[in-house]
């Protein structure tokens, strides 16, 4: 690991320490600094991921959209549970994907699970097996809007 990443890790962990402890006297700051430096030094394994760096800015823009989707489907599931007839129609959906990068597939699987009504059960780089609770959830899944959004996050505009 280069000294630059070591220093960046130390600064990041030290910042987290300050936020969590909330104490700014010399004793706590020095303990935090040495702790952060020690942890950063222990974690010097090089990363084995062959992945391009995350497009952080576009990822941050994706999160509010995801949150809104989660709210919508939560309300849908709430309605189903409180319905005396319990109108569910569970099924397993095979969901082939061509997102390519593993990071994107992980983000897709996690987003699908975070959205109530759909849970990712099996995942590989080209296919997901998803359990959907009702028709609305599986229709939402079939529309592939989530996959499109993630493709937009991971590719520049020209490619998508």
């Amino acid at each position, binding site marked *: 690991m280069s000294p630059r990443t070591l220093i960046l890790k130390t600064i990041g962990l030290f910042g987290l320490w300050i936020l969590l402890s909330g104490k700014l006297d010399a004793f706590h700051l020095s303990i935090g600094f040495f702790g952060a430096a020690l942890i950063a030094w222990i974690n010097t394994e090089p990363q084995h991921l062959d992945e391009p760096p995350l497009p952080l800015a576009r990822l941050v823009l994706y999160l509010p959209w995801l949150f809104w989707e989660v709210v919508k489907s939560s309300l849908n599931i709430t309605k189903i*549970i409180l319905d005396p007839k319990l109108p*569910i129609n569970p*099924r397993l959906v095979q969901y082939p994907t061509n997102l390519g990068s593993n990071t994107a597939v992980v983000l897709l699987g996690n987003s699908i*699970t975070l959205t109530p009504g759909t849970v990712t059960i099996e995942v590989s780089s080209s296919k997901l097996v998803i359990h959907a609770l009702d028709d609305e959830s599986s229709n939402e899944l079939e529309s592939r809007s989530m996959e499109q959004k993630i493709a937009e996050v991971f590719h520049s505009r020209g490619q998508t």
Partner: protein
Amino acid sequence: MLTVDTLLIFIGLFFLTVAAIGVIRLPDVFSRSHALGITDTLGNFFVLTGVAFYQGLTLADVKIFLILLALWHLNPVISHATLRAALRNGVRPWIKEKK
């Protein structure tokens, strides 16, 4: 008196209750996990924001935010791991019988 913090906490408790009812009413492990999805997201979100408002603007808000962030990362992984283990051990999902 109804203030913003108590209102938020009560909305959160409503969603948590709905999730608990869902766990009882839904037929199998796969569909029950969907009910838990509501606790993950809306239930915890409203309760924790309510607590944040109750606290006022202190450093505790940062910690609450970190808890929320951790929950949103961990809960999908837990549901996924549980259901994958269930499916691989031969649990078949409940399917509505055709009439």
